[in-house]
């Protein structure tokens, strides 16, 4: 790839930053060239971001319908799945999965709430709130 062919498409995912990639520069050698983004990269980044957003939206619906607990919404908003939340909180996956049930979640002990809140990076009192 030549420096002139380095895409400068202004990816929204870069948040105004520039990345550096290697390309053949004007002196004929390979070197770092800054890029404002490539549509291809933006497509796959947004795809991954949106996959979690969709999961969170569906979890939110289920929570409002009383079929799931707010924990599931927070989990997807923190871009985690059950396995990752289990690792982050140091609990077994089956316990996390059980805590996704509204009735079980409602009885969750203070200690477990603190643990989840820490793993998700939110305040403990936010844990049972979703909007």
């Amino acid at each position: 790839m030549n420096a002139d062919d380095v895409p400068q498409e202004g990816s929204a995912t870069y948040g105004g930053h520039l990345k550096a990639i290697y390309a053949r520069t004007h002196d004929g050698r390979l070197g770092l060239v800054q890029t404002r983004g490539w549509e291809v990269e933006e497509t796959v980044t947004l795809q991954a971001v949106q996959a979690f957003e969709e999961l969170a939206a569906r979890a939110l619906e289920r929570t409002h319908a009383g079929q799931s607990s707010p924990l599931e919404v927070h989990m997807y908003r923190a871009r985690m799945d059950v396995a990752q939340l289990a690792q982050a909180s140091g609990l077994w996956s089956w316990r996390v999965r059980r805590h996704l049930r509204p009735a079980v979640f409602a009885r969750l002990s203070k200690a477990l709430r603190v643990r989840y809140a820490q793993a998700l990076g939110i305040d403990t009192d936010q844990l049972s709130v979703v909007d």
Partner: protein
Amino acid sequence: MTATHFVHQQASHCESGVMSAIVRHCGLPLSEPMAFGLSSALTFAFLPFFKLSGLPLVSYRMPPRTIIRGLQKPLRFSMRTETFRRPEDGARRLNELLDAGQVVGLQVSVFWLPFMPPDFRFHFNAHNLIAYGRDKADGDYLLSDPVLEEPVRCASADLTKARFARGLLAPKGLLYYPANAPQEPAWERAIPVALKKTARNMLHTPLPFIGVKGIVRIARAFERLPAATDPQATKLFIGHLVRMQEEIGTGGGGFRFMYAAFLEEAATLIDRPALAELGAQLVEIGDLWREFALAAARMIRDRDPLDPAHLAALLRAQAAREKTFFTSLNKAARLS
């Protein structure tokens, strides 16, 4: 405020960027591609039994810490690495080292770094950056993240959370710094050794998940994707490979361009024009990886019909090209 005089330089990849910066800080000029190539960090790996959010682990480079460890022998120095069980200990030790004027490399999770653009913040635990100072007034750390244009500040609570994230490849607070000064290597020896190792990793691993065999294996996985029954999952899988190739700071084309830059630099250093020619060939292979990414993205966006078998054919062609390429590279390295 304690801050060592440190020159930030943007790089394309985190670990090679951090290690080249640490070596340069010790007074030995070293480019990012040279750090990457000398430590034989290039490869391809498809590990379907490690899953992140339901997607397999795919990488275009060797595992984390390869570059940190791999530079020690050629540059004749040693890196000290420390991990911690308790976050408080990790923070205390980092402060101690910074107060002593040390420049310290850190492994962190990208997700917990507030200065990263939100769309990049996923639970990837093997990101690397450098801490070079600390503001004693508010406890903020002065960080040089090699993939960003400028140095940044980070609140100590945030950095500690990022250093002690749990999960796959958990950093466990890993910090690293040179125990003595790196020395200029005997290039005529160090470069061929590194080349042969990369050729071996690409061609002759006993496991079918690494190198050219890994590319063939992921091509086979593409052929088995449920494009007709579950297009969403198919697109996620395809997009995942492209992300690993282009988004995760690879310098474009899954590190192939960076490795080509290394070959070009090596050619000049040890006066072996054949390596520069190989570099040019690898640039072409990198361009084809970019074309593969483009074809994949068009399918994800429904501009082209979803046809993973076509992408699989492109992957198999890439595997064949890389097989030829690394065989030539191995020969060129042995001629010295």
